[in-house]
């Protein structure tokens, strides 16, 4: 009994700093955001309790829905592009081991560069006057594809998404490469002896073996997209209007630029809610899969 208590005490002792920090910097701000979401507050004067008014206004706000769907589009595009690209590149590196370490470093390099630097670099690339994208298109005779990337409503959002999607592919390459290297050699050899070609080996051996890594990458992808901020803010400030803004940018503009902390908190709560819903769905799918 005494031993159990002492083990419990030791666990609490080790966990206490983390719980303390997590409570101070995550749980308490979340709770206070929840409270402020029911208030009208400019950050200076006293808060005024307004009940669900902020939520009703937000749901009736067309800009909010533009931003919401921008964020959903980002989630989908990162899922569709980053994970398959990461997996394909990792598989290619895994198959051709020569120079793998160098390529792995090269692919991972953008991940460690500050998003602000990447965003600034791309905003220069997109510039219609001096940007390299239009210059390259012109040089290769594809003038018809030249665009005002950030001033065209058809390309704007995707132009802002592109650097973010590109930057983090390397992260998934590294994760998948680690996953591929952890597959037992015997399994691959058995498949080859049984006559499985590379395609079948990939589909029936590799993919199931790395499914837990795929789940982790999916969660990282989704959470990364839901809290996306830097690229949009640096390249366009979320604009023109809110056309290239994500929920994080919209929350920041509402709270810190317009000094509407009540509404800003309401947006924060919607971000948390969306995150929880998606995480819940993912957990359900994972549980169902593991049960099967």
């Amino acid at each position: 009994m005494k031993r159990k208590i002492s083990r419990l005490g030791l666990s609490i002792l080790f966990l206490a700093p983390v719980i303390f920090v997590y409570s101070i910097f995550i749980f308490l701000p979340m709770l206070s955001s929840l409270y402020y979401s029911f208030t009208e507050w400019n950050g200076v004067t006293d808060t005024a309790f307004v009940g669900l008014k902020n939520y009703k206004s937000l749901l009736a706000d067309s800009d909010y829905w533009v931003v919401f769907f921008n964020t959903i589009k980002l989630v989908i595009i990162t899922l569709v592009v980053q994970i398959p690209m990461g997996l394909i590149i990792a598989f290619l590196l895994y198959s051709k081991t020569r120079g793998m370490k160098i390529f792995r470093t090269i692919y991972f390099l953008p991940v460690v560069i500050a998003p602000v630097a990447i965003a600034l670099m791309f905003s220069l690339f997109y510039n219609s006057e001096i940007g390299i994208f239009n210059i390259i298109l012109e040089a290769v005779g594809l003038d018809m594809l030249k665009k005002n990337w950030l001033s065209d409503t058809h390309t704007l959002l995707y132009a802002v998404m592109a650097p973010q999607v590109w930057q983090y592919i390397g992260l998934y390459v590294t994760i998948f490469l680690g996953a591929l290297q952890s597959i037992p050699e015997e399994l691959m050899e058995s498949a080859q002896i049984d006559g499985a070609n590379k395609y079948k080996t990939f589909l029936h051996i590799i993919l199931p073996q790395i499914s837990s890594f795929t789940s982790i990458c999916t969660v990282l992808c989704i959470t990364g997209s839901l809290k996306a901020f830097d690229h949009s803010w640096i390249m366009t400030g979320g604009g023109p209007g809110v056309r290239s803004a994500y929920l994080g940018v919209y929350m920041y503009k509402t709270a810190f630029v317009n000094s509407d902390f009540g509404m800003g908190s309401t947006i924060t709560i919607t971000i948390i809610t969306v995150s929880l819903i998606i995480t819940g769905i993912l957990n359900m799918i994972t549980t169902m899969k593991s049960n099967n």
Partner: protein
Amino acid sequence: MKKNIKKTFALGLAIVMCIGLVGCGNKPSSSSSSTDSTKVPSAAATDEGSKAEKVSITIATNWGEGDSKYDYFYPAFQKFQEENADTMDLKLVTYSTEDYKTKIKVQTASGDLPDVFTYWGGSMINDMKDAGLLLEADQYFSDSKAVKRDDFNPSSFDYYTAADGKTYGVPIESTRGVFLANKDIFAQYGLEYPTTYEELKAVSKVFNDNGIIPLAMASSGGTPSEFFFSELYNQYAGAEDELKNLTSSREFATDNAIKVATNIQDMIDNKMFPEDTVANGGWAACLQLYTDKKAAMTYTYPWMFESIPDDIQNSSEVVAIPMLPDATVDPATMMTGFTVYGFEINKKSYEDTAKHDAMVKVCDFLASNELSTELTKSGMIPAKNIEVDLSTQKVIYQKMMAFSEGKKLIQVHFTTMPDADAITMMDSSLDELFIKALTPQEFVNKVQSVLDKNN
């Protein structure tokens, strides 16, 4: 025994982690993006006696490195700092303009405003004023022996005067909007400066045919489009009064606003502006098209004069904006001219008896003739009634002042808009208008909806 060692080790580790956290939390420093010019006190100055006498004062501004005023402000500040090193620990905190606005807003929310800080007026100070954080400027004027209210142009206080009739800031900078034309480019194509919209269309066609952008005007975060919009707005009947009364009427959605927005879109259709209005938006990017001779005309403000090379200043003429269709006020008779910047005094710091005298001294420095005279070298028009020796100013400054002779000075939406978030909405909606993502009516409605919501 072994267990006890483990437990002791674990306990020790936990304590070290906690101490580490506390240590991290205690790091006393301003943001890495700020310029902290606090002087390290000498050994003699750190003794008990000196500590008691010295007063710590924080001045915040956006006139940091990269700003056109930095080269003129910072030496003056350093001189002031050295002269008062015995009595004050002066700390200068600087940020780039947009970061600075956010920083001050956050500090307003946390009740931690700098002691004295340069800032805009109008709706930008509403929250601080409502929270009672700002000192009435008249109180400072009554305490100061060096600076009096009469030293300033009376109208310069309008921007800092709230609905309660009290003034909550000391103006430093007045400004004028200038429409510049490159006379060499016009001469090269045998063109005259356009005075009507039809003429503007005609010269634009010639410039476009020759690969030159007619008018460097774009919109990113509402710059410089917002002031350009107001400049055009003033050409229409009744617009001047509408602008003047905007604070009380809260009516942005006027027929004139729709007319101007419609004309801007017509200008876009006629390819008068650069195609990429977002990438070329912002004061610097927009002006650069003109200074690189990629554009024949531009609309800018004196705070950008520092970025105009001498040869471009020489080849530039300040001309009147062409008259728009249906306009009734001749643009050659007016130009935008208003107080745009000044400084605020933290009421709490000012009323702190230990700080009071030092605060007055710092305010005297910011409102001094010497500093204003220095800042004119960056292109600033002083809000104070001081004689500016034009011969020592930039060529473009001289041309601007010559052009403004006898002109009626008019307001802009930026100074009379009653709510700061309505300005933000105007800026972001102008960006949308410029890429034709909004119709003129939608643009006007978006701004009006913010004013209505806040009413």
